[in-house]
């Protein structure tokens, strides 16, 4: 190519301080987030570790774990890697030190506020988007600061060509911004409570469009960018095929955005949307494996370097884990495989191969590369780093294999019928206690992995102590002459695009929007996608409050509300779920993991339990259900239900299109008290005999009201149909 870098040589320096800040934050939050992960893993074997405290119960700290490892550990890892590589790839300092600092401190502030609000029970219930609306706004603002700094840096670059890693960073910024904003569309009710703008099926589609693309554009594309930078750097050889990397990029960002519905197979989502998700998920294997092969083959003829470099060791396992989970992903998207794996621990194993292997190991490799560079020294102890590598690898295996086993076993037990055609294991609990040993092995695997992390923290601290931090790294490069607006003879037009970051942004945006819009707009528009069921009515005020307690306690972390159309499920839970049942559900609560039984039909005549059963079960699950691993919720019996929010909640629901009568908000609490008294009176005699105090104004009453409502509306339909 003809060059246009004929300017004078300029001296400048790279900002290493911002890289160090983000790297330190990565280590700190990684250690915290994984420790919380270990705690939730142990809670599944020893419910006593919920400590009977609301702030440490599984439903509240499971999102703390996921948010911490995704947005705090990986998030800071992304920023550390991007701020390091971007400056060097573009031969320029970050555009604004101030924006860099705002990006850093703003992001840490968001993390801290998440760590405070999630244990307090402020949650939207939408997975990986649990944070409430004020924090959502903060995330959007800080993300824009990051993007602003990113693009401004690209514009003032001294290197005409945008290396492939930068495209991945651009796609990450643009897509995450779009995903976050669309999915966080919510109506605030109070300072820390909001309702999703979408309802039921539509909410589910938006959520998993977001959820899957959070995996795609937060856990994958930025890390692919880091892979394309750090593997060639660590091996000191060019990427196997630069052309393949270009194809990898465009194919990946175009395909990924369509795959979301594979999280909703066999649910009440319209079939065409499910099929679309499957097709694109299967196609994803091509670019994903192209990227994996490109990463691994970069080391062709140089595998001896892997023996000597702990950085490369980590990265090779990371890329291999990427390959495995991107093979498994498309397989899990096949409906027949998904029917087995969905709602089981198989999925937990799958995501952890990606999280521990791909994200974790690539981050560790990057940190072992960065610290010696930043501190101008060697790694403190290669021996300890190698120890970390091996114990981490073992940890991944010990984590994943038992959970694959557990998931498959439990799924088979759910589906098993005896020779008379009855469920072999009608008691759900038996399928749980049976896999508890696997949960124990998983916790061992997680512990091994965590030991490695602790060793790394020590090693990196010592590296920093031995070395001397270089805050500013001097560099020089010729200034870029004015961009040639045309193409050199024989040059292809894509080269022209590569030189224009703003156009690149628009293009990437357009491409990712195609996927999202085509999939979502029809569902919003086509009424037939959500058949109206006449007997499905809005929740009563008490049930609505109960539903919010269900959300607050994170019940949806372990209980689904989605009966799939399989005989094994309709036998166990009743009629399969219909889209029309969820039209007033802001947000939807289908869940994604069935650690406990499905609750979609909990109040139906088939499954209904006495009010007093729920009361005692919440107080101590093991008193009515021996061997249960559910946390106890004694505080629900003590805390008074906050009825001051009822009017605001009803009004918000009216705004969202739920057909409460005009002016109902003002009198809603009257109905609430009446229903609460009925429930309390019904079970008082029995419970007081057993020594409980029953008061109608407690949170438990609202939760019971909600649970007893579940699945009852559709029975009215059936009764009506039978009468006709």
């Amino acid at each position, binding site marked *: *190519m003809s060059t246009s870098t004929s300017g004078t040589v300029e001296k400048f320096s790279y900002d290493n301080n911002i890289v160090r800040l983000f790297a330190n934050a990565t280590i700190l939050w990684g250690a915290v987030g994984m420790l919380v992960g270990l705690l939730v893993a142990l809670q599944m074997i020893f419910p006593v570790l919920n400590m009977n405290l609301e702030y440490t119960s599984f439903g509240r700290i499971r999102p703390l774990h996921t948010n911490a490892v995704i947005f705090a550990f990986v998030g800071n890892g992304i920023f550390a890697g991007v701020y390091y590589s971007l400056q060097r790839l573009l031969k320029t300092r970050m555009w604004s030190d101030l924006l860099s600092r705002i990006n850093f401190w703003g992001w840490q502030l968001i993390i801290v506020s998440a760590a405070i609000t999630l244990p307090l029970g402020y949650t939207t219930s939408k997975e990986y988007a649990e944070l409430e609306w004020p924090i959502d706004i903060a995330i959007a603002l800080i993300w824009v600061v990051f993007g602003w700094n990113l693009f401004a840096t690209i514009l003032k670059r001294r*290197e005409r060509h945008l290396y492939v890693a930068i495209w991945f960073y651009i796609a990450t910024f643009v897509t995450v911004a779009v995903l976050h904003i669309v999915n966080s569309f919510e109506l605030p009710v109070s300072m820390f409570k909001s309702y999703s703008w979408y309802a039921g099926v539509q909410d589910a589609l938006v959520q998993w469009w977001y959820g899957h693309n959070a995996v795609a554009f937060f856990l994958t594309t930025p890390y692919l960018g880091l892979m394309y930078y750090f593997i060639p750097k660590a091996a000191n050889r060019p990427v196997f*095929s*630069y*052309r393949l990397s270009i194809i990898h990029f465009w194919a990946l960002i175009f395909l990924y955005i369509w795959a979301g519905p594979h999280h909703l197979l066999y649910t009440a989502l319209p079939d065409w949307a499910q099929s679309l998700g499957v097709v694109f998920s299967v196609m994803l294997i091509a670019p994903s494996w192209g990227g994996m092969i490109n990463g691994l083959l970069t080391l062709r003829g140089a595998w001896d370097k892997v023996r000597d470099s702990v950085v490369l060791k980590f990265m090779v396992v990371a890329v291999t884990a990427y390959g495995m989970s991107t093979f498994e992903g498309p397989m899990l998207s096949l409906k027949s495989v998904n029917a087995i794996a969905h709602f089981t621990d198989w999925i937990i194993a799958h995501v952890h191969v990606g999280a521990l292997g791909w994200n974790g190991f690539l981050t560790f490799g990057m940190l072992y590369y960065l610290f010696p560079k930043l501190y101008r020294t060697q790694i403190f102890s290669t021996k300890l780093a190698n120890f970390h590598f091996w114990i981490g690898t073992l940890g991944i295996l010990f984590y994943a294999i038992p959970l694959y086993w557990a998931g498959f076993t439990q799924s088979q037990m759910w589906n098993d019928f005896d020779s008379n055609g009855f469920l072999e294991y009608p008691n759900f609990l038996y399928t749980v206690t049976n896999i508890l040993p696997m949960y124990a092995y998983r916790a061992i695997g997680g512990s091994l992995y965590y030991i490695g992390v602790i060793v790394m923290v020590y090693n990196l601290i010592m590296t920093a102590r031995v070395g001397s931090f270089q805050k500013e790294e001097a560099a020089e490069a010729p200034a870029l002459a004015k961009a040639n607006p045309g193409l050199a003879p024989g040059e292809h037009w894509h080269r022209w695009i590569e030189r224009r970051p703003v156009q690149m942004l628009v293009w990437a945006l357009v491409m990712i929007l195609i996927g999202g819009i085509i999939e979502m*707009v029809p569902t919003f528009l086509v009424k037939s996608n959500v058949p109206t069921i006449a007997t499905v009515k809005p929740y009563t005020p008490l049930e609505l409050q109960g539903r919010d307690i269900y959300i607050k306690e994170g019940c949806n972390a372990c209980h689904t509300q989605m009966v799939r159309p399989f005989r094994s499920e309709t036998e166990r839970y009743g009629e399969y779920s219909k889209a029309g049942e969820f039209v007033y559900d802001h947000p939807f609560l289908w869940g994604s993991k069935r650690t406990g039984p499905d609750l979609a039909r909990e109040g139906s005549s088939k499954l209904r339990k006495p009010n007093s059963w729920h009361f005692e079960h919440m107080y101590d699950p093991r008193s009515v259900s021996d061997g249960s691993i559910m946390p106890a919720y004694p505080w629900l019996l003590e805390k008074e239900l906050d009825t001051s929010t009822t009017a605001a909640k009803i009004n918000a629901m009216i705004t969202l299109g739920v057909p409460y009568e005009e002016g109902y908000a003002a009198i809603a609490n009257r109905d609430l008290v009446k229903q609460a008294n009925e429930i309390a009176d019904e079970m008082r005699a029995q419970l007081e005999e057993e020594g409980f105090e029953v008061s109608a104004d407690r949170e438990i009453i609202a939760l019971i009201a909600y649970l007893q409502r579940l699945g009852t509306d559709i029975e009215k339909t059936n009764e009506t149909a039978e009468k006709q």
Partner: protein
Amino acid sequence: MGVLIILILVSLAVALAFLFAFIWSVKSGQYEDDYTPSVRMLFDDEQDKSTNTDNQS
């Protein structure tokens, strides 16, 4: 609301046109220089400053 959908669909059509053009270009494999950038990124460390390849590419 309806007009929003129309706008979206129009943007969509434009985007699709771009997209097909792009896919065609990828398939035809006409990338001019799909090697130098991968090597150039290796030479940005201080000690390698002298080997800056900007003027050779």
